[in-house]
C-alpha cells in the first residue's frame, strides 16, 4: 500500500516538473524584436515619424505659430485672458521653466526625432528594395533635421540623440553644444539632398519629403548661423539648378483648397478627414479664427497686431490674404465675420477655413493643409544671402519676383462675397526695388519677408537670425506702451527655457539656459 502511494507521489511530482514552463508567449503583440525587419515595417515606422507632426490634439503646427508669431511683434496671443496663459507668458517674455507650450514643443519635436531614429537605425538592415529603403532613411534624416533645427534655434544646445536608446541611457545624456547639433543637421540634410525632386513623386506619394525641402532647411540652417556663402550656394542650387518650384500667379491662391501642395509649396502638412469619428484633421484653424462667427467654432488666438498691419503698404493686395475683418463674408455664409472680440479687430486669414470647405465634415478636426514653407520664402532667403554676399543687383531679381507676384494679386478675395476693405491697386503699387546699397537693401528685404510671410510662423526665426529680436521687441513695447516686449532680456529671451520637468527627471544632468 505504502509503496503505491509513494510511487503516485513521485509520479505526480515528476509530471509537474515536465509541464512547468515559464516562457509565456506575448499574444497579439508586435515587439521591437520582430518589427523593423522588412521594407513594409520601415514604411510604417516612417509614417509613424511623419505623424508626430500631427498627433491628435497635440499638433506641432499650433505650437509653431504660438512660438513663431505670438512671441513677436506680428501677433498677439488673442482669445480670452485666462485661456492658454502659457502663450501669454511667451508673448510677454515672462516664461517660467514649467511653461506648458515650451514643454509641448520640446516633447513633440523629440517624439519626431526619436521615431526618425528608429527608421534610420533599422532601414538599411531590413529586407526589401535598397533604393526605396535608402529613400526612407533620407526622409527620416530630413525630418530629424527639421526637428533639431526647430529645437536648436529655440533652445540652444539640446540633447543630441541619433540612434534608439534604452531608458537608462537617456538618463545619462547631457545637452550637446549648439555647434554639434548644427553639424548633425547639416550632415543629415546633405544626405537628404539625395531625395527625389518634388515632381518625381507620383500623386500617391506627393507629400513625401523632397530634395527641395532638404536643401531649403539646409539654407535656413546656414542663414541662421550667418553663413551666407554656403547659404547662397544651396539656394542657387534650388532656384537656378533644380527648378523644382514656381510662385503661384496670385498670392491668395496659396490658401485655397484647389492649390494644395502647389508648385509653390515646399513643406505642407496634409490634414484630411475622411471619417468624422476619426480625428485625422487639424484643429489649428479653430484656434485661430474669430470667436463670434457661427459655423467657425473659433477660439480667437493668434491675432495679427496693428504693427503688422501698419507694415503693409496701404495698397498692398496681400492684406486681403493676411487679415480678416468684421464684415468680411465668405461665399455660402449667411453671416459675416465678426471680430469684435479681437484686440486689433483682425484675425488670421490664412487659418480661416470657409465653412463651404468643411461641408459635411464640420467637426473639431477638419481637413485643411497647413503650409509651413513656401517658395517665396526661399526666394527671399536667396535675395538676402546674395545681398549679404555683395551681390545686390542679383538679389533684386528675386526680391522683385516676389513683389511682382504680390502686385498681380487680386485685392478682392474671390472666396468672399463681401469684403470690408479692398486695397486699391494702382500702377504704383509695390514697384520694383532698385536700391543696391547693401544696408538699405537688407532693410527692404527684411520688410518684404515680414509682409510676404506674415502670420506664417517664421517671424521669430527671422528676428533671431537677424540678431535684432530684442531691439525690435523693446521698440514695439515703447511704441505701443504695452507689456509685450518691455521685459525682453537679451541674455535670456533669445532662448526658451529647458522644461523644468526634463531637468528634474534627468536628475540635473540637463542644465538650464541663462537667467531662467
Amino acid at each position, binding site marked *: *500500500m505504502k509503496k503505491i*502511494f509513494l510511487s503516485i*507521489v513521485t509520479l505526480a*511530482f515528476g509530471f*509537474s516538473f515536465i*509541464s*512547468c514552463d*515559464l516562457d*509565456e508567449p*506575448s*499574444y*497579439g*503583440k*508586435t*515587439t521591437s524584436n520582430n*518589427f523593423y525587419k522588412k521594407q513594409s*515595417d520601415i*514604411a510604417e*515606422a*516612417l*509614417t*509613424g515619424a*511623419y*505623424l*508626430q507632426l500631427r498627433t491628435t490634439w497635440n499638433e506641432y503646427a499650433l505650437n509653431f505659430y504660438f512660438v513663431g508669431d505670438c512671441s513677436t511683434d506680428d501677433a498677439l496671443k488673442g482669445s480670452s*485672458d*485666462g485661456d492658454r*496663459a502659457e502663450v501669454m507668458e511667451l508673448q510677454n517674455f515672462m516664461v*517660467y*521653466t514649467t511653461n506648458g507650450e515650451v*514643454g509641448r514643443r520640446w516633447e513633440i519635436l*523629440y517624439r519626431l526625432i*526619436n*521615431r526618425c531614429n528608429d527608421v534610420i537605425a533599422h532601414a538599411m538592415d531590413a529586407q526589401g528594395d535598397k533604393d526605396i529603403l535608402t529613400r526612407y532613411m533620407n526622409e527620416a534624416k530630413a525630418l530629424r533635421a527639421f526637428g533639431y533645427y526647430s529645437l536648436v534655434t529655440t533652445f540652444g544646445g539640446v540633447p543630441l540623440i541619433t540612434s534608439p536608446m*534604452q*531608458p537608462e541611457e*537617456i*538618463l545619462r545624456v547631457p545637452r550637446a553644444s549648439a555647434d554639434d547639433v548644427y553639424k548633425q543637421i547639416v550632415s543629415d540634410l546633405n544626405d537628404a539632398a539625395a531625395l527625389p525632386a518634388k515632381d518625381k*513623386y507620383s*500623386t*500617391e*506619394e*506627393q*507629400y513625401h519629403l523632397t530634395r527641395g525641402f532638404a536643401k531649403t532647411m539646409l539654407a535656413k540652417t546656414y542663414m541662421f548661423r550667418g553663413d551666407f556663402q554656403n547659404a547662397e550656394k544651396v539656394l542657387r542650387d534650388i532656384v537656378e539648378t533644380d527648378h523644382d518650384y514656381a510662385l503661384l500667379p496670385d498670392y491668395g491662391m496659396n490658401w485655397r483648397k484647389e492649390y494644395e*501642395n502647389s508648385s509653390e509649396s515646399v513643406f505642407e502638412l*496634409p*490634414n*484630411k478627414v*475622411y471619417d468624422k*469619428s*476619426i*480625428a*485625422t484633421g487639424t484643429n489649428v484653424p479653430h484656434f485661430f479664427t474669430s470667436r463670434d462667427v457661427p459655423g467657425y467654432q473659433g477660439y480667437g488666438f493668434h491675432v495679427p497686431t496693428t504693427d503688422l498691419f501698419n507694415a503693409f503698404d496701404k495698397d498692398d493686395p496681400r492684406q486681403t490674404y493676411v487679415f480678416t475683418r468684421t464684415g468680411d463674408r465668405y461665399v455660402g455664409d449667411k453671416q459675416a465675420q465678426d471680430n469684435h472680440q479681437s484686440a486689433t479687430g483682425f484675425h488670421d486669414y490664412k487659418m480661416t477655413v470657409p465653412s463651404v470647405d468643411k461641408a459635411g465634415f464640420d467637426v473639431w478636426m477638419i481637413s485643411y493643409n497647413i503650409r509651413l514653407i513656401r517658395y517665396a520664402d526661399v526666394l527671399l532667403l536667396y535675395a538676402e544671402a546674395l545681398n549679404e554676399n555683395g551681390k545686390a543687383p542679383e538679389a533684386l531679381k528675386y526680391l522683385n519676383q516676389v513683389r511682382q507676384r504680390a502686385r498681380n494679386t487680386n485685392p478682392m478675395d474671390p472666396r468672399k462675397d463681401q469684403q470690408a476693405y479692398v486695397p486699391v491697386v494702382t500702377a504704383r503699387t509695390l514697384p520694383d526695388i532698385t536700391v543696391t546699397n547693401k544696408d538699405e537693401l537688407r532693410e527692404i528685404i527684411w520688410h518684404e519677408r515680414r509682409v510676404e510671410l506674415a502670420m506664417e510662423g517664421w517671424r521669430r526665426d527671422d528676428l533671431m537670425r537677424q540678431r535684432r529680436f530684442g531691439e525690435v521687441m523693446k521698440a514695439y513695447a515703447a511704441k505701443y506702451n504695452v507689456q509685450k516686449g518691455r521685459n525682453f532680456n537679451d541674455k535670456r529671451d533669445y532662448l526658451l527655457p529647458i522644461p*523644468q*520637468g*526634463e531637468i528634474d*527627471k534627468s*536628475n*540635473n544632468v*540637463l542644465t538650464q539656459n541663462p537667467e531662467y
Partner: protein
Amino acid sequence: MKRQLILLLIALAFSIATFAQSEKVITGSVSDRTTGEPLIGATVTESGTSNGTITDADGHYRLKIKSNQINVSYVGYTTMTLKTLKDGNYDVRLESDNALNEVVVVGYGTQRKSDLTGALSSIGERDIKNYATSNVSNLLAGKAAGVFVGTSSGQPGSDAVVRVRGLGTVNDNNPLYVVDGQFMDNMSSVNPADIERMEVLKDASACAIYGSRGSNGVILITTKGGLKGQTVVNLDASIGFRSSYKALNMMNSDEYYDFITTAYGSDPTFDKTRFTNQYKKGYNTDWWDEVTRNAFNQNYNLSVRTGNANSRTTVSVGYVDEQGAIIETGFKRLSARLSQEYDINKYITIGGIVNLAKMKKKDSGALPSFEFIQKADPFTPVINPLVDPSSENYEYNKWAPTEWSFDPNPVSVLKLIDRHNGLFNVFGHAFVKINFTQALSYRVQFSFERNQDTFKSFRPIYSAVFSDDMLGNRESKYNTQTELTNNSATVSNHLVEQRLNYNKNFDKHHLDAMVAMTYEKNMSEGINAFKRVALGNDEVYRILSAQTTGDQTSGDKVVTSMLSYLGRINYSYDDRYLATVSFRADGSSRFAKDNRWGYFPSLSLGWRLSNEKFFRQSSLAKLFDNMKLRVGWGQNGNQRIDATAPLTLIGTNNEMQWYFGNGYAQGYVPTYQGNADIKWETSQQTNIGLDVTLFHNALDMSLDFYVKQTKDMLLNMPIPSFGAFPNSPFFNAGDLKNTGFEFVMNYRNHVGDFNYHAGVNLSTYKTKVTKLTSDYLTGSVSRTYEGGPIGRFYGYKQLGIFQNQSEIDSYVDKEGNKIQPNAHPGDFKFAKLGEKGVLNDDDDRTFIGDPNPDVIYGFNLGFEYKGFDFNVAFQGTIGNDIYNVAKGTLAVVGYQNALADAYNKAWRVEGDRAVYPRITTSNDNNNYRVSSFMVEDGSYLRLQNLQVGYTLPSKLMASFKYISSCRVYVSAQNLFTITGYSGLDPDLGVSNPLNMGYDSTRYPSSRTIMFGVNLQF
C-alpha cells in the same frame, strides 16, 4: 399561519407527553467560562449512559434524561459534571484547559496559536457572524491592528482598499488574498456568509512562505466546512436601506444668480439677459437630492452543514441585492457553494469545493466625473417642461438640458446610459490527502478559478430642446446616434499544489515540517467591440448587430505562469523555545529569463517565558497566564507589474495615420517601452513582538514593532521626454523603509449572565524613501523625495487674503519688487519662499501636507445579556491630511455651480474675515492654484459597524419543533463619523500611494441599516 399553529400545538402536546413518561427534559447552553462564547459541538451526556447530544451552532442543547447527572465535555476544556434534579435550564460554563490551544491557519498549514512566532491577526467566526454585508473586506475594518480598510467607493460591490502595515512600496500595496489555499484577486464573488475565519499575516516571517506575493501582507480566508455528526441548517435574512450620508453644500439658485452676476459684472461676453431669464424661471434644483436615494437592500443566506463519521458536507446559497445610494447603481449576487469531504479509508481523504457566483453590477461610470452632480446649475429642472409628453421618444428626450452648466444634466446621464457588468465566476478546488503514517501526510490540491465578465454600455439617441435662454455648451447634451460598447473578458487561473507534511513529537521536541511545490497559470482574454448607429433605442437594438457603422474591435490575451518550491520547519522544545524557518523560490514568466527567479527566506524565534520554571515559580505566574516573546526576519517580493514589462511593443491606432496623397497610410510607433533588466522587488522585514495573557485569560495583549525595508521598488519611472518613450517604463528605481508599531488589547469578562468584551487596536507607521534614481516622484499634487515619506502634498502656502491694494503693494521681496503684482484686494496671498522675484512655481512651492496618518486605530465594545447582544466597532485615523480638490474646482466662477461657501464666505469688502477669495472671473492671481488652502486635517472616528440582536429564549424555541434558535438583529454600517473634514468623506481608500489623501469627488460612501433574522433548524 394555520399550519404553524398546528405544529405548535403538536409540539406542546408532545412535550406534555414526554413529561408524562417521567423523563426529564433539560435544556441550556454551553459556553466558555472566561469569554462567554458559546461552544459549538460540546458533548452533553447522561452520566453512565450513552444517551447524549452535542450543542448546536449557538451552544444550545436539549436532552431527555432519566437520571440526575450529566457530563459536559469539549476538546481543550475541562469536563464538568452537573446535578440535574428536575426539568429546566442548565447553562454550563466550561473552563479552558489552555486558551492558547486555539488553532490558527497559517500559510500551507495550521499552527497552535501558542506556537506562533510570526505576527498574525486572527478574526474568528464570532467576530464576523451576522455582519450584514456583501463585501468581505468590510469584515476586516477595525478588527485587527495594522490592518486598515479604506472605502474606495460607495458603489455597491466595489472592493475596499486594504492596507496591511501601511505602505511598503510606492507600487501596488494590495495584500494577497488566499481563499482555502487559492490565490484570488477579486473578492467580490466570495460571499461573507460562507467565511468561517480570516487570518492576516503581517510580518515577513509569516508572509515569506508566500514569497513574491507576500510583501504587502496576506489575508487567509477559510470557508465553512461540514460538521461531524450533526446537521445544522441556518437561514439568515436581512433587509434594509442604504443612503448617502453627506452632501456637499452647493449654492441655491438665488445665491448662484448673485454669485455669477457679481463675478461677470459688465463683461461683454456675459449674456446677462439670458442668464437672468434662466434664473427667473424659478427652479432651484438640488442635484444631489435628485441623484441620490434611500436604496433598498436585501441579503439572504441559507446554509446546510452536515456530516457523519466519514464525510462532511456544506451546501449554501446566498442572494444579495444592494441598490446604490446613487440612482441606477447597484449590485446583485446569487452565489452557491458546495463543499464535500470523504474519508475513503483511514489513509485517504478526498474532497473539494465549488463556488458559483453570478453577479450584476451597475456602476455610475456613465458620469465621466462625479463633479457632474455638483456642477449642474440649479436653474435647470430635472424634466424639461418644453417637451411634449405625447411626443415621440419622450422617455429619452424628456430630460432638461442644463442651459448654463457646461456639463449635462447628471440625472439624464445616469438614466439614459444603460451600463452594466454581468459576471459569472466559478472557483474552487479538489484535493486528495493521504496520511501515510500519523506523522507523514501528502496532499495534492488542484484549484481553479474562471471569471467571465461582460460589459455593456449603450448610449441611446436623445434630443435636447433648448429654450431661447440657452447659454451653456450644447454638444454634450444630445446624442444623434446610438453607441454601443460591448466587451467581454475571461480570466482563468489554475493552481496545482503538492505538499508533504511531517509532524512528530519526540519527547519534549516537537517538529512540524512541510515541503511543497506549486505551479500556476493565469490567463486572461478579452474582446472589446464598439459600434454605432442603430435604428432606435429599444432593447432589441442594444445589440452589436443592430448597429450599422464604425466597427471597432480589439482583443487581448495575456498568460503568465509561476513555479514555486517552498518549505518550512516549525520546531519547539518543551513549549518554551520555538523556531520557524521557511524558504520559498518563485520563478515568474513576467520577468526576462535571467531575472526570473526570486528567493525568499525567513527565520523566526519565540520564547514562552511563562513556561519557564523561574516564571512559574515567581509571583508573575499568578498574574500572567502566558507571556511570549517573538523575533522574526524574512524576505518577500512583489511582482505586480505588467506581464509585458520587459518587452517594447509596437502598435498603432486609428488616429495614427498620415496622408501621402492617396488615402491614409497607417503609422507604427512604440506603444509601450519595456525594460528587460528589471528584477524582483524585495522587501525585508524584522519584527519583534510580545504576547501576554493576564487575569485568567481575560486580557490579551500583543505588541509588535517592525522595520520593513523594500529594495528595488518596481516603479514606472518618468524618463525625460526627449527619450520620447510612450510610457514611464518599469525600473527597480528606489528603496523604502517603513517602521511601525502595533498594539492590540482584548478584554473579555462577565458579571453573572452579563458577558462583555472590549478591544482596542492601534498602529502607527512611518515611511521614508531611502533611495530614488529620479529626483522625485509625482502624484496628482504630491511629491516624494529621497529622505522623506511617500506622497506629501506639494504646492504654495496660502497666507490669507489681501484686504486692500496697499497690502499688495507692500508685499515685496528684498529688492522691492512686488511679489504678486497681478493680485487685487480679495485675492489670496501666498508665501514667498524664494529669495526674490514674482511668485513662481520654481521657487515658492513647498510641502503643504502629509497624508500619512500618525495613528490608525480601531476599537470595539460589546456585551451579551439574557439573549441580548450588542456590538460596536469603530475605526479611525489621527493626524493625516487630505487634499480637498473640490475646494478649488468647485469654487471657481464659470459654467458650473459652486460650493455655497464660495458665496457665503467670499471676500467682499476690506475687513471681511472671509475664507474664499473675491467673487470674480479674473484668474490673474490664480487663487485656486495647488496650495495649502485645499489641505485639511483628515482625522476621523467612524462607527463602522453596530449590531444589536436578541436571541429568543431557548425555552420558547423548544416549543417550535423545526426551529432550534432564532435571533433578530439590526446591523448598521457607517452610522456616524466624527471629523473636521469638510469634504464628502475622510475615509478615502485611494489605491495609488502617490495619490494618498487626494480627494477628488467620488462615489460617496454610504450608510446602511439592515434588519435581519437568523434562524437555525
